[in-house]
Each structure stands twice: as C-alpha cells, then as structure tokens.
C-alpha cells in the first residue's frame, strides 16, 4: 500500500511547555520543562503534571457556550495559535465547508465535566443545571466542538483509541481524502488533565513522584500532561508532508505493551513501507518514551534493532508530560518543528540511557538538517500508530 502524500498547510500545538510553535520550540531549545508538582487535584497526589496556565479564566465565546468545558477550552486555545483558524478559512474558500473533514482524537474528551457533575450532584441525583448539556458528557464532545468552532460541515468523527488517538486521525483523514470523500481535513486532538487519568494511572502504579525520566535506567513512571494541537491536511501545498503511517494492534494486554514490541514493530515497518522509505532514510524519531519501565525498554530495544546508529531518537515527554490522547498531535507538531528548524530535541530530565537502548536514543539536543522523521504513539488496548513526515516528497 502506498498513500497519497498530503501537505500540512498549517499546524499548531499547546502544552505545558508552551502555547504555539514559537513558545514550544523555544522551550525545546532552552530545555525548559513544562512539568510542575501536581496542583490540579484537590485530593493530594504526589506526582508531576504538565498543566496549562490560565484555562480557568478563558471561557469559550458565547456562541460556543454549549460546549463549555476545560477540554474544549484547551482545543479552542490551540485553534487560536499560529494562524490556524485563518488557514482553515482559506481552505474553506478553496474547497467549501462541506468538503473539509474533521477527524480529531482524544482519550477522555470532556470527562472532566462529568466528574465535576458527580462532585456537584443535586439532592435529586441530577447534574447541576450548568452542566446539563449532553454533548459535553460523551466522547464526541471534542469533534462536535471543533467542527462547530470552525464552521465546517463535512465528515466529522472523534477517534478514541487511548494514547494513539490523535496519531490515528492522520491515517483516517488520508483515507477520506484519497477516496475523494473530503478535499481537506482538520486533524488533531485534545486531552486535559482530569481525575480519571491522574487517579487511574495512580491505580496502575504508573505515576512517577518526580518529573518523568524517559529511557533513564532509574526511571520510575510517567508524568501526565494536558495538550492539544491541530494540523490542516490537503493534497496540494508546500509541505511539510504526511508521507506514511503504520497502524497495528498488540493483541496482548489492555494496559501493558507486548514484551517484544510485536505490534510496535508492525506499525514502524508499516509507516516506512507506506511511504516507500527505509529505516536508513529516517533522521529523527520522536519516540513514545513514556518513562514507564516496560514501554521504554521495549521501544528502545526495537529502535536499536531496526534503525542505524546515526538515527536520532528521543522522547519529549520530559517537556510535555504524557499528553495521552493528545500525544499523537503534540509530538507530531514537535516532529514537524524539528523538520522545519533542524532543532532535534533530546530527552529531558534523564541523566543516562537504559542499556536496553542502542545509540539512537539521545539525551542532548542537536542541530542537523532533516528530511524524514517518524513519530511513535502506542496506546492502551495495544493500539499502535507510527506517522512518517517529510520536509519534501520522496523522488
């Protein structure tokens, strides 16, 4: 299978490390982490989080009040960055509102609003009146909000495959465009901090009490962050380009990766194959690198086996935390920034590399010209997606 390369006419992201491309690239260059001690949960939880300041005081515009909640505020904030809405408006002029699909990913969508409703349940068992808005209590809250916020009317769906969600959206959009079901697509995703994921990962004993240290032999768990981002995909344009993708399942465990990375391997090879490239062509890999014991060991070993030593691979979760369903888009944006700027972020907070890894996994930043790069996303339920981006199309 080879895919139709798609031009990424606009892209942006927001996370604890920065709002918009300039701030995010600045944080990557300055090696400034967006992690801080948890100040989000009222019940104490000893962990570090990638929290975005100011969302509490940024209500949605009145016309979008139906979708009011933290997750949609975060998505709205991302849509304001880097001229993204203007780029969509320009795409509307080219294609029409009904020809632009919205395919966005999230793990928990606006479950934070449902959690709040339960904390404030009325004596009769009803939600408080301000939260009696059904759309924010279902997964499609995000997709429905983004479509309305952008004034689009084409195909619209919310993909929710845990931590691969907003990577898989690129694959779905490419299929729709290849078949002529859309001429362009807004892809991306958003996941905010909420009790479900903070106390959920706590229950699995996967949270670190320190800033996460991906691939460090002394790593002891993940830090959770919130984040959102979007990209506009079209057939024609200047690039950068979506050149390929690989998707697979582990068929192994709901919350643990396959010990030999059987699914991850298929996703990596699938991405290379669909883009007509070989491992030797890849200059940079933004790894999933959660800083959980198992993920990093399996992923590090797999990269050592499949890629040459000169491939530069790193995890940027030391900057952003694990943004879960938004990790695919946030890390795709970091990968696109690396392609554009030649700034390759290393791995933050880690002081050594696990001996299971090869020389590909780097701690220090580096500057070099890149042509092709991968972004890895591996999720709960064994859902894997690897995206292949390029600054040009292959010859």
């Amino acid at each position, binding site marked *: 299978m080879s895919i139709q390369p798609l031009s990424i006419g606009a892209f942006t992201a927001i996370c604890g490390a920065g709002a918009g491309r300039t701030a995010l690239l600045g944080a990557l260059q300055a090696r400034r982490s967006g992690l801080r001690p948890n100040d989000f949960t009222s019940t104490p939880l000893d962990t570090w989080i990638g929290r975005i300041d100011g969302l509490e005081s940024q209500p949605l515009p009145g016309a979008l009040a139906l979708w009011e909640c933290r997750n949609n505020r975060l998505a709205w904030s991302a849509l304001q960055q880097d001229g993204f809405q203007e780029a969509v408006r320009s795409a509307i002029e080219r294609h029409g509102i009904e020809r632009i699909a919205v395919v966005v990913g999230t793990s928990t969508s606006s479950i934070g609003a449902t959690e709040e409703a339960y904390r404030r349940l009325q004596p009769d068992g009803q939600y408080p009146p301000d939260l009696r808005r059904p759309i924010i209590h279902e997964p499609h809250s995000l997709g429905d909000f983004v479509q309305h916020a952008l004034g689009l009317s084409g195909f619209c769906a919310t993909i*929710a495959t845990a931590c691969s969600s907003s990577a898989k959206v690129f694959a779905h959009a490419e299929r729709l465009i290849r078949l002529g079901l859309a001429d362009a697509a807004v892809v991306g995703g958003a996941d905010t901090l909420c009790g479900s994921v903070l106390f*959920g990962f706590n229950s699995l004993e996967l949270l670190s009490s320190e800033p996460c240290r991906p691939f460090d032999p002394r790593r002891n768990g993940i830090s959770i962050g919130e984040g959102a981002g979007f990209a506009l995909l079209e057939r024609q344009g200047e690039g950068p380009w979506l050149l390929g993708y690989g998707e697979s*399942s582990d068929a192994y465990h709901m919350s643990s990766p396959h010990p030999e990375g059987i699914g991850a391997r298929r996703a990596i090879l699938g991405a290379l194959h669909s883009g007509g490239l070989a491992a030797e062509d890849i200059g940079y890999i933004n790894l999933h690198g959660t800083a959980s014991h198992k993920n990093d060991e399996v992923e590090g070993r797999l990269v050592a086996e499949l890629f040459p030593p000169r491939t530069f691979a790193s995890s940027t979760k030391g900057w952003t935390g694990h943004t879960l369903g938004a990790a695919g888009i946030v890390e795709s944006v970091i990968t696109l920034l690396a392609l554009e700027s030649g700034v390759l972020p290393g791995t933050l907070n880690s002081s050594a590399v696990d001996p299971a890894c090869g020389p590909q996994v780097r701690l220090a930043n580096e500057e070099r010209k890149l042509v092709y790069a991968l972004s890895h996303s591996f999720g709960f339920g064994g859902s894997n997606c690897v995206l292949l981006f390029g600054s040009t199309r292959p010859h």
Partner: protein
Amino acid sequence: MPVQQAYIEGIGLWAPRLAGWDAARAILRGAAPAPCTPAPRPSPSLLAATERRRAPDTVCVALEVAASACAGAALEPRTLPSVFASTYGELPVTDYMCATLAATPALLSPTKFHNSVHNAAAGYWAIATGCLEPYTALAAHEDTFGAGLLTAAAHASTEDRPVLYVAYDIEARGAVATMAVAHSVLGAALVLAPHATPRSVARLSLDTAPARGDRATLPRPENAALVAGSALAESIVLFEALADGTARAIVQSLGPRLRLDIRIEPS
C-alpha cells in the same frame, strides 16, 4: 462525489429481543414474532473465563456480534482490520469512575480504569482473537453508526481487503443516564469486503450529500420499537432492509448538514 462500494460478507446483530442475526432476520421481516422476554446478556466464548469476569458489558455485546459477523463471512477474525463505533462507550464504568472520583479517588480500581477507555471493546477483541491488524474506536454523537460504517467501508476500499465493522451501545446506570440516550442495548456488526465473493449477502453503495433537514429513513414501527432507547436505533433500518432481502435506498445521518445515502442491493 465518488460512490463507495462495499459487499456485506457477514452480519451480527444483538438486542435483548433480537438475540442473534438468524432470529433477528425472521423478526425484522415480520416472519416471526419478537420474543416477549429479553434474552440474557451474551457471554462470548471467545474470552477466557478470567477475562469474561473482568470484561464490561459493552465488550460482551461487541464481541458477540463481531464473532457472528466473522463466522457468517467464514473469515478468521485475526485477519481483519476493524472499526468499532460507540456513541458512549462503557457508561456503567463511567458512572463508577465519576462516583469513585467524587468520593474516594485514591481507591479507584485499576481494572475499571483500563476498561474505561473507549477502545476497551476493540482491545479485548484484538486480545481474544490474537489480531495484530489495526483497529479503530470512534464516536460521532447521533451519527455514530453512519460515521463508523463509512470509515469501515473507506478502510476496506483503501486497503483493498475485508474489514470488520462493529457498532454497540449499552444502557446507562447512575447519574450519567440523565444525559444519555442509553436505555437499551444494541450491538451490530458487518464484515465489509471491497469486492463481491460467493458469500456476499448484499452490495452497499455509500455516498455522502449535504443534508437540509433530511431525517434518517425510518424503519417499520414494530422494528423501531425493538431497539428504542438506543443511540444507535436509527441503524436498524439497514438490518430491516437486509432481512427483507429486497433492494432499497436508505439515509443515515452524518451530522446536522451531512447525510449518508446507502443503496442496498441483495447479491
């Protein structure tokens, strides 16, 4: 707009009074009465005993219809990429999570947490069948069935191979029930192939068009009553057409301003 063609190779359907496609086919075409008492919740033999105990109800319904559709298509489940669509996912787990977080967050169950992801059914399916092919889990409010169907057909077409489509929603419990159209269980599955085979049941031609207040095609009232209270109830008209075995054109909703036109032609 190019029309997407997909051939239905296998069908699965489960609702309390439509327990399995064979029974449902006779009931939906009016050849047999619907049972007065609801069938017990399916307990898929695919799952190991320990998994069956841990698996939430969505998983049981989704796996039941998925396995039936694959059996009908005579295809090994592990060979098929899949698309799982659910408006709400596992609402009883959402109720548990939110109630526990409001009272004793530190006591949240790790099993309930990993069952709370929207891709729980797809993940359990992949594990139970040993399927390394990709799956997707999606939601699209009132348009979930149509969005999932078009996604699955697009996947079959671009990859040029059969794809499993599974749609499911179950009843809500607790306060979440006040915000959801989730008063009954419905699971539906289709194996969609890009080309006709000797096993093809029907050909679907799918096309999108701008909607101007169009409503989804209504099923016959007696069939609508069998799935009332499910967010996926609109989809029963497709299964009614398949049960009738006659050519028919129907509409499913894809959003306030987009509709999915489906032409069904029996093979």
